[in-house]
């Protein structure tokens, strides 16, 4: 067990860059970030103010990288960052932040506080201050291949069930396929219908695709706990498998942080561009729809709304695609107030749902989503992230709300025009 404060401080020295220096130089303590963060709005506890969550990072930056800070340090006038302080900050950095990014959208001076919290986790984790639940998920991902400990046999069982359900073959390890699909543990365990939906959609659309037995897990605990080296190892498994199978593109599933990890952080983690592109499943479905390969029939008649997963919409840029898809399969689609890139987080992303210590806070924060739903008065909420689904379901149950959560890919698959099945 080799975590140490020294390693943590060193990691923070490495990650402090020009943007962060600019952000700390610009913060005017206006507090508007608090009012954008659901952990503050639903608790009214000032310590959940986003910029406050990175205060130790700010002090370190000042001490290490500014003239006045260095001079103060030389004369013993600065307060060093200590283990006690980082331990005190652990719940702020891990329990009360999902990396949703609203604070970064709101800050009047343009600070990307989400980015700063992501970087601060690099120092927190390696000094031993990440929460137990998240450490466990990371260990399992590194050692076993998935944060929930799912190995190939478990996947194969689900594959078998979905093949039976759909009457279609789910391809594995097919070299030269156009697309390699990934899955999140959450989907494999809780929402395996997603896999069946993929099979149906791709069959109808004539898409050549495959899974890889060597890399099927999309979830990247490394970026949730904030250890770039581990996140890089996790991404590299996917990259190796995809390049081995010579696929053109890898599909990131309905999981928010998986998309962030693979599409946006991945090449920077491994230090080189990929030999393939990365698309989110919603992007692919939208492309198929534009090409006329996604023929659907019938529409849901009940009123429904869409919860934008933060990493996919606000931090990922996939905003209009789900709406176009929903337009095909829903009659009465109603937007939440604060929608699209301004939607509110489910409260469980970024490692929060794996963190038992954070459960009470997460359920309190859920009141924000509850308020959005209460205002709309719908009974169905569609989303496109398996983690959001679980978190939302737990929240809805906690507040005794009569709202059903549905995955978008599955919903689309349900409305596919029936074609002859492959068997």
């Amino acid at each position, binding site marked *: 067990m080799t975590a140490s404060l020294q390693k943590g401080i060193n990691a923070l020295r490495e990650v402090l*860059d020009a943007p962060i220096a600019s952000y700390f130089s610009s913060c005017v303590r206006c*507090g508007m970030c608090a009012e954008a963060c659901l952990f503050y709005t639903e608790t009214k506890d000032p310590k959940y103010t986003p910029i*406050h969550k990175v205060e130790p990072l700010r002090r370190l930056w000042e001490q290490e990288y500014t003239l006045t800070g260095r001079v103060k340090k030389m004369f013993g006038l600065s307060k060093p960052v200590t283990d006690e302080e980082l331990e005190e900050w652990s719940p702020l950095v891990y329990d009360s932040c999902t990396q949703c990014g609203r604070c970064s959208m709101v800050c009047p001076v343009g600070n*990307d506080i989400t980015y700063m919290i992501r970087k601060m986790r690099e120092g927190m984790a390696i000094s031993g201050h990440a929460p137990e639940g998240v450490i466990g998920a990371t260990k399992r991902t590194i050692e076993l291949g998935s944060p929930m400990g799912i190995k190939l046999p478990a996947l194969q069982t689900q594959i078998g069930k979905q093949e039976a359900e759909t009457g279609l073959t789910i391809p594995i390890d097919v070299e030269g396929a156009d697309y390699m699909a990934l899955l999140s543990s959450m989907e494999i365990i809780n929402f395996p219908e997603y896999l069946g939906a993929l099979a149906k959609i791709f069959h109808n659309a004539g898409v050549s695709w495959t899974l890889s037995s060597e890399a099927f897990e999309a979830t990247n605990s490394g970026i949730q706990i904030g250890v770039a080296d581990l996140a890089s190892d996790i991404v590299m498994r996917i990259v190796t498998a995809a390049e081995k199978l010579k696929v053109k593109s890898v599909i990131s599933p309905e999981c928010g942080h998986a998309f962030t990890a693979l599409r946006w952080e991945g090449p920077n983690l491994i230090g080189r561009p990929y030999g393939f592109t990365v698309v989110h499943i919603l992007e692919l479905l939208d492309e198929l729809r534009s090409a006329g390969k996604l023929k659907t029939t019938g529409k849901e008649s009940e009123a429904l709304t869409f919860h934008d997963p933060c990493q996919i919409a606000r931090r990922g840029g996939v905003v209009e695609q789900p709406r176009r898809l929903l337009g095909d399969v829903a009659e009465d689609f109603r937007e939440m107030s604060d929608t699209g890139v301004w939607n509110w987080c489910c409260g469980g992303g970024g490692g929060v749902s794996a963190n038992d210590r954070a459960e009470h806070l997460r359920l309190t924060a859920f009141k924000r989503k509850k308020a959005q739903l209460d205002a709309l008065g719908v009974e169905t909420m569609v989303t496109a992230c398996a983690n959001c689904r679980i978190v939302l379901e737990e929240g809805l149950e906690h507040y005794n709300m009569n709202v059903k959560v549905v995955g978008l890919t599955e919903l689309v698959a349900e409305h596919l025009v029936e074609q002859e099945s492959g068997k």
Partner: protein
Amino acid sequence: MNAMDLLLWSRGPGLGIAVGIFLFGMVLRLFEIYSLGRKRDLAPARTGGEGSGWRTMFSRSVPDRAQFKRSPVVFTTGYIFHLGFFIVLLFLLPHIELIEAVIGLSWAPPPPPIVDLVAVITLIALIVTLIYRIMDPVRRMLSTFGDYLAWGVTFLPLLTGYMAYHHLLLDYTLMLALHILSVELLLVVFPFTKLTHMVTLFISRWYNGEWFARKGVAS
């Protein structure tokens, strides 16, 4: 030292020292920021989106409606005192003369009573921001000595300028000297407080806008 000596010092060496320290500090801060660099992003950016760093530099000044409702005091007083401060700074004739003497540009001033009214509104807005900073739990928790200092050095030039213009309390020569000295205090303290945001906010907004734009989001 009498009031005239103070005034002549403030218009002479004092100004040189203040401008000098201000520029020294700001140039230093820019080097401190940029020397840390930014790793090149190897993930391919989306193209064709509306967002960009340059756009966010300006669009971030326009609040999102819903968020405005969540932070009405900060938005409202913030806008009023920033706009008010710059209107008074740029549109009072003695200031226009000063700017012309330093950089050669000038423009026609609006009628003094209008600028005067703006000054009063700005002073009131600043007082409201101070009260809010002290009374609201989030702001109170966040605020440090530096925040109150920044408030003070921003408030004083407006207050002393107003008092000088209206011959309030002290002899004009002394009041004018205090006004100019208060501006020099602002300049000297500037690079070592959050007031640097006047320049760095454009840098921050650019980085922010660029980050989001690569994802195809206009922030």
